């Protein structure tokens, strides 16, 4: 469990980091919190020639308000985000997602951007960003480009980050009038989910749903957007009965993951349960906001 030899660089500015990526091309990999890459290096499953360590690039970390949005630096530690009053107040779904990410020691090192760029299908943060319809800002030699979350994750461990690019920050639009819900089930607390669900919901003064979002994670290479469920709820009072009916519209055929310990049938069974609970929670919190 010793990594294959590699060269190591620890730039302090984004420009310097991008320069190194340009110089070494496909031989280089960036390292953020190292919670996934370090084990992969130790197992020699990843064997880059060059490692560009972003931990000293101070400008990549931090959470800031920008009008109606929050801008979250890619190197922001999960623990920092979880403790952030801004996140608590404005992005409750991110907070609920982060509570399910690993453990205090892993969250102290792990970064938001690292998890999103790693694109594990069962990871919480990428799904939360999909639920938020967040925007990923990528920096590259030719400047920056903004990519919607929907177009960012392409598959298991696969994103649209091109060679020479670094995920710089995530921009999330804040909706103060919505309720959110997050549920996941894992074999052991803090582990990757067997299935997970994230929901957002807005209600009008009468308690009618005027906007809903539902994501199901850990069942396919990319978290599933369940628009049919959301559409079925818009215009309705989100009672438990309505939500139970709506989650039947989850496209179970889109589920792919099937392994001996966690079968496809089991995932198809629990995902609607988790979705229902997440939607109920979102509806209840949205209801609380109206009072």
């Amino acid at each position, binding site marked *: 469990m010793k990594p294959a030899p590699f060269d190591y660089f620890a730039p302090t500015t984004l420009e310097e980091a991008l320069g190194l990526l340009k110089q070494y091309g496909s031989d280089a990999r960036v390292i953020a919190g190292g919670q996934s890459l370090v084990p992969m290096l130790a197992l020699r499953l990843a064997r880059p020639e060059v490692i560009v360590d972003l931990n000293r690039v101070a400008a990549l970390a931090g959470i800031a308000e920008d009008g109606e949005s929050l801008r979250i630096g890619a190197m922001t530690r999960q623990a920092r985000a979880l403790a952030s009053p801004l996140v608590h107040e404005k992005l409750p779904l991110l907070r609920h997602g982060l509570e399910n990410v690993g*453990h205090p020691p892993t969250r102290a090192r792990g970064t938001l951007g690292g998890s999103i760029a790693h694109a594990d299908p069962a990871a919480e943060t990428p799904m939360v960003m999909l639920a938020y319809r967040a925007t990923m800002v990528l920096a590259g030699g030719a400047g920056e480009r903004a990519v919607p979350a929907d177009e960012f994750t392409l598959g298991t461990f696969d994103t649209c980050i091109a060679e020479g690019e670094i995920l710089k920050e995530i921009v999330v639009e804040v909706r103060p009038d919505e309720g959110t819900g997050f549920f996941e*089930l894992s074999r*052991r*607390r803090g582990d990757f989910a067997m299935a997970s669900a994230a929901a957002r919901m807005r209600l009008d003064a009468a308690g009618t749903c005027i906007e809903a979002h539902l994501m199901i994670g850990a069942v396919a290479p990319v978290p599933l957007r369940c628009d049919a469920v959301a559409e079925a709820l818009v215009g309705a009072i989100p009672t438990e009965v309505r939500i139970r009916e709506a989650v039947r519209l989850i496209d179970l055929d889109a589920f792919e993951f099937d392994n001996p310990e966690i079968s496809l049938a089991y995932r198809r*069974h629990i995902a609607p349960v988790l979705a229902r609970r997440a939607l109920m929670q979102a509806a209840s919190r949205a209801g609380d906001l109206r009072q």
Partner: protein
Amino acid sequence: MTIGKPVVRVEDERFLRGEGRFTADYTLPFMVEAHIFRSPYGHARIAAINLDAALALKGVHAIVTGADLPEGLAPIQCRIPTHGDLSPYLQYPLARDKVRYVGEPIAVIVADTRAVAEDAAELIEIDFDPLPAVTDPARAIEPGAEPIHESGNLAGRWGFDLGDVPGALSEAAFIASDSFSIQRHSAMPMETRGLLASYDAGRNLLDIYGPTKVVHTNRNMLAAMLGMGEAEIRMIEPDVGGSFGARGEFYPEDYLIPFVAMRVRRPVRWIEDRVEHFAAINHSRDCAFHVTVAANRDGIITAFDVKLVTDMGSYIRTHGDVVPSHAAASFPGPYRVRNYRIDAMTVMTNKTPTGTYRAPGMFEANFARERAIDRLADKMGIDRAELRRRNLIQPEEMPWYVGTESVKRPTIFDSGNFPLIMDRALKAYGWDAPFEREVNGWKRGRGLCALVEPSGLGPFEGVRIEVDQHGKVQIFSGSSNQGQGHETILAQIASEVLTVPMEKIRVRHGDTGIITFGGGTYASRTAIMGGNAVHSASVGVRQKALDAASRKFGIAVEDLDLREGAIWHGHRNEPVVTLGGIARMLMPGNQEILVSPSAGNIPDNDGLVVTSYVRGVTAGAAVFAVHMADVLVDPETGETKVERYFVACDVGRQLNPLIVEGQIVGGVVQGLGGTFLEELAYNEDGQLTTGTFADYLMPNVYDVPPITALVFEESPALTNVLGVKGVGEVGPSGVGATIGNAIANALATDTGLNKLPLTPERILQSTGFGGLQ
């Protein structure tokens, strides 16, 4: 009085300060490091090995393969008796022509650093001819299955047939019958294995740091394999971060690391990494039972009829077939059932070889028996505790001869009042108290398990006690300490007998250089065997001191008395002499006792030193325990939450209640891991698919429920002076059974929950979730 007091462990301070010294903390001048190249195949022939590129890498000192092993080297021997001849299945330290499991050592690379050695490993070229991997024991014994060894895949078939099982079955009023399986899992000590071997070629002396558990046995095995004198090898146990039965057995590396150190003439260190550990350490459990239990109309269990298939993995190691052997010998548990039959098969597969893991055979048998008894109670419509109570062995029937044997020793329960402990346990837990069956949509269930755990096995143990002229006491023990707290309890016993405070007593252990013979630490034996050896030697020291004082001061021994670490005469205000003073008197060079050579040597000129070896008792000491738990189950997802866990047991006599409680609580947590999470799973190619902690899940701190230990000292062991019974394994032993029974109770299901681990998916399957959604 020190025995029985909650003395804080003397080991804790150094561990908490980070001052423990583990194998990886040891370095020696000119030391190099080893890495084991292991088979990537579950089953394959080795056609050719090319080391040229690897040997050419800078920093590589040597690479040893099977071809380099001495001609005529014997395989690693089994250290305990087995059912039948298992010698065709023993393992050589390195594979030669064929590999039989993923992780089997093929070569040892010695290099400046571990990292360089791993780089070199990637340059080793081996032509493998893959063979079909055999991973299912049922298929392994079908005709036409690929043979793993020339002797075939069925290594052994044996059993017991007591009383009249067919008769009892034909007359039974109630019968419950089902299959139960316990998955392959094993010990995951926080510290992996490690060895540092240093060879002094000029003097032919070999020192090895890192062995533990049975260092004298291992030293003797290595001496035989290397053709060295036993005393020319010294095995030294450093601090050890856990064994749980797995660490400290004689593994291939225990030959290979000394062997390469002798070859390269430099100290060689090997630290097992976690990925190696998963594939290299003895795996365990992996049993499938079919159980039929019969009862008459009065709820008296009349027969157990059992079939047992155990997946032994690819080789037989030092433990032989002890796991199925213990399971078979103890299957009837605490019940007075005389009609008992078991048909046991031990089967070879292309998986890591197996050995013992805390409560070997017992965790397994208890799960199968106690789940079956719950099924029976449900069929009969009587309370599950009541059914057990009616069938417990009665105190007047002690000692109870089960009629079976394991490792050629009869299974005997020496003492115990099982019904009394059971009643008190049920009362303390509130078994009969009604409880809410549903909480926020989750179902609550309650389960129990009764069991007998053997302890204190093995032939002997020894210590030497030395008192120095300052009155400090050193105990040199033949047993080992892997974190259990033996340095504390052994000191407590000496402190009690010698009336010396704990601070003046040091316990050293696990070192073949400090005592000639040692039994070791396994089978919950150190409190019993090591403890009684300390007691015996302490009594010897006391007698020797009293005799010496009597001679020196002309006072009759009966008028002398040992108190506060000194010899006192009646009720006088001043002691006659301290123990340190006696030690000084008895030093060989002391002028006072030296006489002219012509007078010959006087007997007591060898210091205040006593060596004592105590003999083991055939069947050790049996601990009766009752486990109970309340579990919540989410019927929609199969998620569970253990609300509380309770263990009541009769340990005869507690040496240290803190350590007893710690053993039980820690053991329960390990049992919960085996019940819910841990599995060493293989795919059809013989690849271990749960070979990292990302896939092999252990309980973490968030998953640990409140655990209560209720410890009784009702029936002291009759087989040792201290009256103690071993408490190391009662914790895990009943967890699978108790939790399975509680979940079945919660879901009111009489199917399923017979296959560990109890994953959420399997829990839902027990209620037939397949048709839902």
